């Protein structure tokens, strides 16, 4: 009776805190939203002087780039230069992205160590001897240039670093609190702890089980907070679309796959390759299905995250782009509130996708490590 009461109070507190944190996030997002709209309108206003191409604008915004562009156009734009790191046949070459002078059409040639590079639509090409700009054949293969291995710190990588720095700051502060005292933390640390407990009690323990969940907590917690914080940062004006980039989600999905493959127990492999308890002639068929399933699981994870985040960005950008397509400011009266609505929806999606990715990762890992008592 007494204990039940305590539990109810604790639960109530948790939901209160969750609501509080949600309110804070919504407030921050609402405060920043006008900036998003203004900065995008500003950027697009000048593009529209040329022929406005909504597809190019959207692809540019959701794609990666070699500099962190905030506002302005051409030489006057405010762009944070980022290091370009290339692995060529002659070794590693690096220079700042500002050396391209905001050129993304492959006109401005950067010379380094006797090699010549251009930036064509945020892809770095190494020009062959005698070439001044990159040219493409009918299948869009470069004819007079090649692509070196590009390990540049792009906008997405920089945004990733920002997430890492935030996570280290947040959770080292919580960890520091726990080193000093034994009682529950207050304020922001309490929100963080509630979220950590949410991952533990709602994701890891139910999916993996009381005995084995501890081993996977570092991965699950890191992936949850990484995706969530990156999603939220991606909603800020001028921010990068990290979790909406397929390379990032492929990497995250492969982490889950690796954990399944490394931790899969004997039962799991037996069920994958030679399912017990069924007629022998069905076993090879089922093996094919199971192996495909094993690969489809992380593929589904990577596509889900990538598609959801990218779709959200595309919808917002399309709504804003409508103003320039129809060349009428009156459209803003409709498309801006719509974009606002979608942005708020995206706040929910940001959490939801982090939750789903973590949840399904935990589920797949839980299936791989589960003990089967029957058969």
């Amino acid at each position: 009776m007494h204990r039940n009461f305590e539990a109810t109070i604790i639960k109530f507190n948790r939901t209160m805190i969750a609501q509080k944190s949600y309110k804070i996030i919504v407030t921050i997002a609402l405060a920043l939203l006008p900036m998003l709209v203004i900065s995008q309108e500003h950027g697009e206003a000048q593009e529209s002087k040329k022929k406005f191409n909504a597809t190019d604008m959207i692809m540019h915004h959701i794609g990666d780039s070699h500099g962190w562009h905030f506002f302005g156009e051409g030489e006057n734009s405010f762009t944070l230069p980022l290091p370009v790191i290339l692995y060529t046949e002659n070794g590693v070459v690096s220079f700042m992205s500002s050396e391209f002078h905001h050129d993304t059409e492959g006109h401005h040639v950067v010379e380094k160590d006797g090699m010549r590079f251009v930036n064509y639509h945020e892809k770095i090409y190494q020009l062959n001897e005698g070439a001044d700009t990159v040219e493409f054949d009918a299948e869009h293969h470069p004819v007079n240039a090649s692509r070196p291995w590009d390990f540049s710190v792009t906008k997405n990588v920089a945004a990733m670093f920002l997430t890492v720095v935030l996570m280290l700051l947040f959770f080292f502060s919580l960890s520091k609190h726990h080193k000093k005292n034994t009682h529950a933390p207050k304020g922001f640390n309490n929100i963080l702890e509630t979220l950590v407990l949410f991952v533990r009690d709602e994701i890891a323990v139910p999916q993996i089980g009381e005995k084995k969940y501890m081993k996977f907590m570092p991965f699950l917690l890191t992936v949850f907070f990484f995706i969530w914080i990156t999603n939220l940062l991606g909603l800020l004006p001028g921010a990068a679309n990290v979790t909406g980039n397929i390379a990032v989600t492929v990497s995250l999905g492969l982490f889950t796959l690796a954990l399944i493959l490394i931790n899969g127990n004997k039962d799991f492999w037996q069920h994958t390759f030679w399912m017990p308890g069924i007629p022998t002639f069905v076993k090879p068929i089922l093996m094919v299905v199971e192996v495909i399933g094993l690969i489809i699981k992380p593929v589904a994870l990577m596509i889900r995250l990538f598609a959801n985040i990218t779709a959200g960005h595309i919808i917002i950008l399309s709504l804003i782009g409508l103003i320039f397509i129809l060349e009428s400011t009156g459209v803003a009266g409709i498309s801006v509130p719509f974009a606002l609505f979608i942005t708020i929806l995206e706040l929910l999606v940001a959490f939801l996708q982090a939750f789903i990715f973590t949840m399904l990762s935990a589920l797949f890992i839980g299936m791989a490590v589960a003990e089967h008592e029957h058969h």
Partner: protein
Amino acid sequence: MDLITPEIGLFFWQTIVFLVLIFLMAKFAWKPILGAVKNREDSINDALASAENARKEMQNLQADNDKLLKQARAERDAILKEARELKEKVVSEATGEAQEKADKIVAQAQAIIQNEKNAAMADIKNQVAALSIQIAEKVVREELSNKDRQQKLVEDMLADVTLK
């Protein structure tokens, strides 16, 4: 197609950064945080359990107290009852004894009275006898002082006497 073609550079960075992040977070954040939370939960559970125990102990103590109180009350009642009985007994005993004593005294007094009465009666008898003799003596002396009368007396007496 650019959208769904993973860039090797970004993939490389994501993998490296994520590996380092997992390592750092696991060592410096997740482990201490989860450990501390676990400790706190354990201590809360312990505290709740010990509170429950204390409550039970309190209940036991209260029950003991009640039992003791009841016992004490019963004992008091028993003592009171005994006392009352004793009193009644004492009173009744005393009454009986007094009655007996009184009866005895009365009996003694009666005996004494009887004795006294007897003695008095005997005395009275003696005195009456003596008086009678004296009177008789005087009468006789008077009677005998005269010859005629003497004669007469003798004759009277003789007349009374009948020879058997």
